[in-house]
């Protein structure tokens, strides 16, 4: 008993005296181990769109938000006086939105398997539980609003649910705006940031691009309130709203980082589906080739006669074939085609059909970019077109033959970003980027060339301790399953670019993160 007593006392004393952790000569926890340089990182507010919000896998969900680049940067800034960083976290890890109980955005994509057991992106099983009308209270350091364009940040009522129906509000902002009339920038400025990041303008070109150029280039139109969702923002409008936003943030902030707009063509959304995906060894396509060439041969003669032989459509029996697309920038020759075919003895109904269907048709070239979502469409029967033909009393067999997407029925505008459309996108992007870099220089702000980063990912890749991160879809590690938004690993790379820019601009020594600790592989889970 006595021994036990002594032992206990000795132990208690020993534990009390010595359980202290061993201390390093220079601990990373010591004040001054890392330096904030000339910047004040105490209150960080990040402003932007889905990329800032941590949107990934076609949804906003908690894990994605936790791995948003602003959150990663904010964590590292804690070493140099950074404060807490709050985000308007979603209600779940499923993603998706409810508006008055109705699903208005679906759950996130995970890698599932198709009927044959092959990996394919699918929606994660479960029902969205984030109701946008349950507005959050408080302020949020992360002011990333998925879907926002440059001018939306200044738009009053962008968080007013009543404006959703007319397309003048954003459901994500409805969730956390301070009041119905609040602007995104206003809510950001109210927090008196000492430091900010601004990455906006992506959607000003991206929605046009992801819709395959289905929108309008609004260059020359200075009134953004008249723009459609898929339109390209006028560069002067961009320049004006962007500098207003920077000025607003710099009312309190003495330091910040501006991030430019990557060329959309660097994302796997545009680089995954090849222009020539039709494989002659495919048993459901190969045997059709002779008959296809016979039918198209008749059309090719017409193209030759009309002096547009470059529109000829020929399928090879040995090599991969380009899809047939509808290029809206081609002169519409519907009437001419119909006339020539009729002159050659074809009956009027068929000649009219052929004219309608192939008036702006051509085969894709390596310069055309097929969007990621065209993957599930090419070679499939186009039901809508089939029904339209049947309604015109076209016999079932012929109607079906004329309704195969990308083979007989030209892929419509939304599936293809043609080289003409790319040029429009690139021109606008370059104009925005000139504004961004110019402002960064003029205001002595840090600048991150995200365009160069994405180019590096697309051409060669970026090394990390576990190998190479590239922009390859699903396997490259940088892009999530929607092909546009970054994985946690892509966000970590972005965060390191920002940290290096801050260190350089402000003579700081903020530590970078280990990219390998952030997931670059597609998320797995039970699917619907």
């Amino acid at each position, binding site marked *: 008993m006595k021994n036990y007593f002594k032992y206990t006392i000795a132990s208690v004393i020993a534990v009390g005296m010595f359980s202290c952790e061993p201390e390093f000569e220079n601990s990373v926890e010591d004040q001054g181990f890392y330096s904030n340089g000339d910047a004040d990182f105490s209150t960080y507010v990040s402003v932007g769109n889905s990329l800032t919000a941590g949107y990934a896998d076609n949804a906003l969900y908690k894990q994605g938000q936790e791995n948003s680049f602003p959150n990663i940067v904010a964590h*590292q800034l804690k070493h140099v006086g950074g404060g807490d960083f709050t985000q308007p976290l979603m209600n779940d890890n499923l993603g998706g939105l409810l508006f008055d109980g109705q699903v208005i955005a679906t759950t996130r994509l995970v890698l599932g398997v198709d009927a044959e057991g092959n990996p394919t992106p699918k929606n994660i099983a479960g029902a969205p539980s984030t109701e946008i009308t349950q507005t959050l209270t408080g302020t949020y350091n992360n002011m990333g609003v998925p879907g926002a364009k440059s001018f939306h940040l200044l738009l009053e009522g962008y968080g007013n649910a009543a404006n959703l129906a007319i397309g003048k509000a954003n459901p994500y902002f409805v969730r956390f705006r301070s009041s119905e009339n609040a602007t995104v920038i206003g809510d950001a400025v109210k927090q008196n940031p000492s430091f900010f990041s601004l990455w906006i303008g992506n959607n000003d070109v991206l929605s046009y691009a992801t819709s395959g150029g289905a929108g309008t280039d609004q260059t020359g139109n200075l009134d953004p309130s008249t723009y459609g969702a898929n339109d390209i923002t006028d560069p002067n409008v961009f320049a004006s709203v962007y500098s207003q936003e920077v000025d607003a943030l710099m009312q309190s902030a003495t330091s910040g980082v501006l991030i430019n707009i990557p060329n959309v063509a660097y994302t796997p959304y545009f680089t995954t589906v090849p222009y020539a995906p039709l494989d002659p060894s495919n048993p459901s396509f190969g045997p059709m080739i002779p008959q296809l060439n016979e039918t198209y041969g008749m059309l090719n003669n017409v193209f030759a006669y009309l002096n547009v032989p470059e529109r000829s459509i020929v399928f090879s029996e040995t090599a991969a074939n380009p899809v047939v697309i509808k290029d809206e920038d081609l002169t519409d020759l519907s009437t001419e085609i119909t006339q020539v075919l009729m002159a050659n003895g074809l009956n009027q109904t068929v000649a009219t059909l052929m004219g309608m269907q192939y008036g702006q048709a051509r085969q894709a070239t390596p310069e055309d970019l097929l969007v990621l979502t065209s993957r599930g469409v090419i070679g499939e029967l186009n039901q809508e077109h089939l029904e339209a033909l049947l309604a015109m009393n076209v016999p079932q067999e012929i109607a079906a033959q004329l309704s195969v997407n990308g083979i007989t029925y030209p892929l419509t505008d939304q599936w293809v970003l043609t080289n003409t459309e790319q040029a429009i996108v690139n021109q606008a992007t370059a104009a925005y980027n000139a504004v961004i870099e110019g402002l960064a220089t003029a205001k002595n702000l840090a600048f991150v060339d995200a365009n160069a980063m994405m180019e590096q990912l697309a051409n060669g890749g970026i090394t990390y301790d576990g190998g190479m991160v590239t922009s390859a879809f699903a396997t490259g590690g940088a892009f999530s399953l929607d092909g546009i938004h970054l994985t946690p690993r892509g966000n970590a790379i972005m965060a390191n670019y920002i940290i290096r820019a801050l260190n350089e601009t402000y003579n700081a020594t903020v530590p970078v993160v280990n990219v390998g600790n952030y997931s670059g592989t597609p998320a797995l*889970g039970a699917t619907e």
Partner: protein
Amino acid sequence: MKKILLFLVLISSVSVSYAGGYRVSTQGQRALAMGHTGVAVVNNAELAFFNPAGLVYLENKINISAGVTGVISNISWQNTQTGEHIAADNPFSTPFYLYASYRATDWLTLGLSVYTPYGSTVEYPTDWSGSHLVNTIDLQAIYIQPVVSLKLSEYFSVGGGPIFVTGGVKFNRNLNRTLTDEEGNRSNVEIDASGVNGWGWSAGFMFNPTEDFRLGFHYRSEIILEEESGEAVFSNVPNSPLAPVQNGKVAFGAKMPMPAEITVGLSYQFTDKWLFAFDYNRALWSAYSSLDINFAPEEYPDSINPRNYKNASTYRLGLQYQAMDNLTLRAGWYYDETPVQSGYFAPETPRNDSQGYTGGLSYQITPRIAIDAAFTYLHFKEVEESYDHYQENGQEVTFEGLYKSNAFLPGLGVTINL
């Protein structure tokens, strides 16, 4: 004789010396207080561990020693590139010993010893930066050994006996650096092997050229603890046919060596009150080349963890001073070189070279009962090290950082002589 002594001390001070790994040297408070020397010290029943050959020279017919040590060990880790840092406040572990000897005849002593020479408890914060290597480990091994000690003459004796070991290990780590379930919880595996048994032996001799001077040699064999059907529990694995494993229990096989240890040493009673002791240990750690965990399902990737330990030595010095009739004071020092080679510094046993500073006392309460106390402080220099052999998609990925460890080992025991 003094020249030899001086020579040995010189060797010890210029040699680079070793030990470490998951060896925990707390097999007797009296020995530990003297730098854990004892292969040539005839003092009490602790000889049953240090050198059974010496038991036969104990004065009393029955000798019993028992004790327990509280191991308080701490690890700090940081990475200056990334600013990551953690502190592992490891659970208090309590290695113990119990030794008894009985002199059957003038030339024969029988004994029994129970001791815990190997063990490790490390607990990192869950999901820390190195969690793909280890979150927690709890390794324990109990040695039970009957011993025989034979006096061949006043000058020479031999001793030894078979060893039965029963042990177990619990080991928890994350499956890799990034896999999570649908809610973002890191996918994890915990392996649990308990009641794993093994056999070995130890033998030694003691040589007493003069009344005051003893030499000792002791060898303890390698014992491999092999688990054939342990239980591995996978958790937080996403619910997908594409996941590398599924949630739930599977069987696994693994083995872990308790390496052989050779000890030579001497003791010299240079006055009535003063005794000096020196031990040299050589632990044959090269037996620990890889920790391989083979999961029973064919489709589960096995866990291959190269360790590539090297044989390691420890040099130990101890002094004993008879301060009063009923009070003995002791002090010691040792230098322990790690068996872990550069580039194989896995956080599960993050031990670099260390120095042990020891002290203690015995207080004779009655002529038959003494209390033994010892205190050890283990000092590790901070070290920039890495484990370079973690595999990720066929590529070796380094886990590195600055480590600093320390350990405090207060211990208490009792010695009974009948």
